[in-house]
């Protein structure tokens, strides 16, 4: 069997009395889209935050590319090739779309301790950044400050920033949220191709997108993964139908 890119084992995380992650294990294999679904408040974002390093788990381990990264900080994990997007867009608001992506390009190059050369005229940053903006269809909005972009455009910019990191795995937290039917459809097509570049752990409420894209689906309820399987296995799993898809048993 192929070694998984990302291997999460037995994660636990409590906020006070609330057990937001309760012994969650999952893995991400090369070339796949692994969807993580579950009702609101199930702990999906909390899980993503632990994998990306934004939150420290109480117990459990996270291996990435064969290395235990449980103790590494967010920046180190990102440099190893773990790119995440945020459920609520999180960008440098005063910077233009282009400069947001340029920052990710310079992070990828590891050249942030350069003090003199102006970035604005630096094609080794602007050119790749522009390419990423084009890929997500934001090229004509390159010079607009992130704060002035529409909600949907900010979602696209999040993806462009992640692309610029040339990651080994994507963690996407509800990339379709608030995109509208057109945007969701376009993004579904885009993610379909993206899995060839790096596998994707996809948190998503849009079931059409999930069922169209996912190689495997995991269902998270109250911090626990109650089932993992192919789309058809998940659709026909009685426990999933009861707990999540809202059907009587």
């Amino acid at each position: 069997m192929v070694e998984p890119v990302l291997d999460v084992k037995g994660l636990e995380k409590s906020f006070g009395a609330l057990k937001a992650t309760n012994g969650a294990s999952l893995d991400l294999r090369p070339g796949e889209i692994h969807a993580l679904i579950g009702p609101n408040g199930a702990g999906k974002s909390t899980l993503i935050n632990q994998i990306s390093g934004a939150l420290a788990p109480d117990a459990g381990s996270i291996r990435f590319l064969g290395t235990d990264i449980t103790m590494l900080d967010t920046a180190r994990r990102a440099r190893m090739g773990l790119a995440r997007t945020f459920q609520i867009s999180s960008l440098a608001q005063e910077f233009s779309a282009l400069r947001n992506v340029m920052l990710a390009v310079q992070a990828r190059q590891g050249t942030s301790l350069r003090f003199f050369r102006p970035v604005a005229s630096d094609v080794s940053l602007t050119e790749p950044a522009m390419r990423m903006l084009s890929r997500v269809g934001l090229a004509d909005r390159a010079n607009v400050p992130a704060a002035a972009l529409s909600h949907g455009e900010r979602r696209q910019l999040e993806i462009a920033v992640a692309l610029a990191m040339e990651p080994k795995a994507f963690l996407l937290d509800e990339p379709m949220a608030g995109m509208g039917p057109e945007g969701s459809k376009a993004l579904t097509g885009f993610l379909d191709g993206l899995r060839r570049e790096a596998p994707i752990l996809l948190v998503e409420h849009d079931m059409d997108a999930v069922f169209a894209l996912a190689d495997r689906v995991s269902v998270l309820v109250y911090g626990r993964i109650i089932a993992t399987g192919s789309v058809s296995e998940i659709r026909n799993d009685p426990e999933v139908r009861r707990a999540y898809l809202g059907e009587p048993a």
Partner: protein
Amino acid sequence: MGARETTVNVLLVLLLPAVALTALFIGEAFYITLATRIAILALAAVGLNIALGLGGLVSFGHAAFFGLGGYVAGVLATHAFNMEPVAFGLPGTTAMPAIWLVAILLCGLVALPIGLVSLRTSGVYFIMITLAFAQMIYYFAISWPAYGGEDGLSLSMRNGFPGLNTAKPFPYFVVVFVLLLAGLLLFHRLRASRFGAALEAARQNPARLAAIGISPFAIRLVAFVLSAMITGLAGALFADLNRFVSPSMLSWHMSGELIVLIILGGKNRLFGPLAGAALYVLFEYALGGLTERWQLFLGLVLLAVVFFARGGLIGLLAGRPRHG
């Protein structure tokens, strides 16, 4: 930068040499000293502006570096005068370039541990911890009799610069002004650079910066150290201007004054520190003669800036900043 901001900046740069030259020709040395004072405070604030303006790090302890720079000038000159080695057989000196180098390096060295500790916190805790470190250095200076303790340390004469008679006000103004220009150029290049982009992102959204693989802590630490070095250089110049250095340069009033300069001028604006320093010194000069309570009026101006002109003087004159 907008065309209007460029015009305002050019006028501001020309202001100080214009005042100093006029004063030179009409024989009013006092105004040269006033212009020199503005330039030095502006340079100190340019340093702080790297941390505060670009990085959003409200250091309430930059007087530590300003005073440290001042003491480097005073202590090295005293040892040179008395022909006693400073430490490890190293002699003192009255050569400004050597003094500047020592001041810059020492401030960087001191800023490193202070930054390592205080940058683990943020917001009001960061303000308090930087203040606490500065106060420690302040009390250390007060209680150390070797260099004058509470009374401070006088320089028997201004330190020298090769080829210039720095004892005269105008040549010394030129030295200071050139260093101010260098400081402004450095700030300008820094802000436009990759480091500047990372630092400004650390201010806007540290979680985003970490998520793309740049540690906000590391970027801020470098910024804090650079910032301290420039403020320390200004401190050495200040000691030479007054031919006197005392613990008051290290006091929290001084830290507050530097923050006020930046807020007055416009934070994160290239020329904010210069505009703020000019305004501050003019206030001190114009109102200080009339009433001892001039700081009361300064307080009112500061209130007006905070409520009506967030961009400070530069914002008022040149409009909102442009971002690429």
